[in-house]
């Protein structure tokens, strides 16, 4: 079975065309016509990306290798599964200051960014949590790696350089949905990281000032 990256380009009429070959099974799921039919949000809402890619990926064990394992939650999870926790932690490890290069900076694992995101999402509307979990699975899936950067295999099992390429692919994607997905992961990662007092001094932020002891008049 031959796989190659699906390259998308926008034509003068605004239509998306795929220029690289893909398999018949993929063509049913990811055909340009199908993509055009789906709104940005319905892609996630209907589980198309997650469902179709996972369905395809499920028949190909190689694409699911890794599975977000390797990081253990510090406290009982309220929304994410252990696998989803691991996927987000792996994303945060590339989005936030990276170890071991970022000498003196805490790692997002040290700050439990994934755990904080789990707690936060658990208190939002249940659909928000469901969509974010689905997003993590799509990003993790081997077919996403194949389509976005031409490398099969899951995100968590990829090399750091390959992980960065996958993030870059979504960050600059022509597909608005993927840019939204990138922003969702990135914002949650950096928000939990830089709101931690352990990082204040590293960004030359002394923290909140002392407060006058008396109430204003």
């Amino acid at each position, binding site marked *: 079975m031959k796989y190659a990256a699906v390259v998308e380009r926008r034509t003068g009429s605004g239509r998306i065309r795929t220029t690289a070959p893909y398999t018949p099974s993929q063509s049913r799921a990811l055909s340009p016509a199908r993509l055009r039919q789906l709104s940005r949000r319905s892609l996630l809402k209907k589980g198309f990306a997650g469902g179709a890619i996972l369905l395809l990926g499920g028949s190909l064990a190689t694409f699911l290798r890794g599975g977000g394992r390797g990081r253990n939650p510090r406290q009982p999870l309220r929304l994410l599964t252990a696998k989803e926790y691991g996927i987000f932690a792996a994303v945060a490890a590339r989005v936030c200051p990276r170890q071991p290069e970022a000498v003196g900076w805490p790692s997002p694992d040290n700050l439990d960014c994934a755990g904080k995101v789990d707690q936060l999402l658990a208190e939002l*509307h249940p659909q928000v949590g469901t969509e974010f979990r689905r997003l993590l699975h799509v990003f993790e899936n081997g077919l996403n790696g194949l389509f976005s950067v031409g490398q099969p295999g899951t995100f968590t099992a990829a090399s750091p350089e390959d992980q960065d390429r996958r993030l870059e692919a979504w960050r600059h994607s022509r597909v608005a949905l993927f840019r939204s997905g*990138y922003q969702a992961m990135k914002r949650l990662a950096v928000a939990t990281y*830089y709101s931690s007092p352990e990082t204040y001094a590293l960004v030359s932020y002394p923290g909140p000032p002392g407060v006058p002891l008396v109430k204003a008049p």
Partner: protein
Amino acid sequence: MKIAPAPGEIRDVRAEPNLATECDFCVVGSGAGGSMAAAVLAQAGARVVVVEEGGHYTRKDFNMQEAWAYPALYQEKGNRATEDLAITVLQGRAVGGGTTVNWTSSFRTPDRTFALWASRHGVVGLDSATLAPHFAAVEERLSIREGNPDDVNANNRKLLEGARKLGWQPELIRRSVKGCARLGYCGMGCPIDAKQSAAITYLPDALAAGAVVFTNARAKLVESDRGRATGVVCEVKDAPGAAPMAAAPAARRFVVYARRGVVLAGGAINTPALLQRSKIGSRSVVGRRTFLHPTVPLLALYDEPIEGFYGAPQSVACHHFADRGDRVGYFLETAPLHPMLSAVAFPGFGEGHQRMMARLAHAQATIALLIDGHHDDEGGRVTADIDGRIRLSYPLAPVLREAAADAIKNMARLQLAAGAREVMTLHEDAVVIRSEADLAKLDGVVFGPNRHALFSAHQMGGCRMGEDPKRAVVNSRGRHHEIQNLWVVDGSVFPTALGVNPQLSIYAHARLFAQAIAAAG
């Protein structure tokens, strides 16, 4: 079980499940509009119950930590955004509403905005003269005085200096403060009560006149019977740490029976969503024309420290570009630069993002707020699902993209004039400007969803006022066109964006509307 709360109480409904209560008027929301309406109606002798979906926090709770403040004090725990995540929406959710977290900037509604509402949106009897006594009363109550040059921190001083050098006539912002220590944390709740938020001004006025406030009660439905509003059904927010309420099959309810009427002040986005859930009015009008003042930030880096995280967040504004004729106008202000908010806005990830964060203390942020709704742009749309989720779509119209492109070029000029070493757009492909000659780089800059940072701290519209029931939700005094004892007194009534920070306009319109409600008996 019905309860009869003592007048002047603030009660957390979570402590008392399965309740109901009665009143003359039920006011939904305790921000600028709701607290004002509650005060006016209670002082007129009515029994008033205010329901507020957020919690009751006081200065002792405001610890100036972003990790606490955004989840506690903002809608969707600080995660509200357009549904494509292209625009981050900062909107308060606590006793005091948006006034608990706003940056205190206070402007009267511009004359040109009133004129536009009258000429194009069928608004009758609203102009500067009509609102003047209401503006004056609010300014007195909130201690809004002339702008104070001592309020200007380094972040705002760059805007002031740059605009002056270019002849763009900057102005000092009037602020709703008394005894301000210029800590810089208005957006996280004032820890010394210097900010004159609704929670320490009009809401206490309402309580003193006998009103009762119920917190952690989220208005889910307005009940009506034969053309009259009869009450409000609320969901009781669960205690922290519990499963989210919408996940529970039978969320606890709290019912307020209102004998004389219901006054909605949940803010733009939440008020139209409440009407939609209640099936009041047509979805062809309710939720349409939602405006955000889409806000484009531009970052400048200076050799000297700016420390944009300290000092009054906003003290200088520039309205030089507010009226651009047949093109969308915008006005310039600044935004504070605390680590979390900055990290979310800064583009990229990994090492590049870290390098930018390491320069945070030297960064200055000028923002351009696009005045939407004054031209051919129709704004956004709010839709409410029956399960409680609210969605906001907001396509950035071509006329707004043109304004955004013009704004970043002029902001770059301003920041260079103020001595910036480097100016940077917050596009994912950031454009870096180091001199006037570099400004041409901005000609091809693209504005599109999630290609750059966009914020909104001003939500307006969605229940626009006007005299034509086919085009407007309420009349020019906030009364609903179909249900005669239902009123809207928040920013959702504005037919367009204001062109200035909205808190003072919301207070003043609410005061005018509430007096009309009281007079109507």
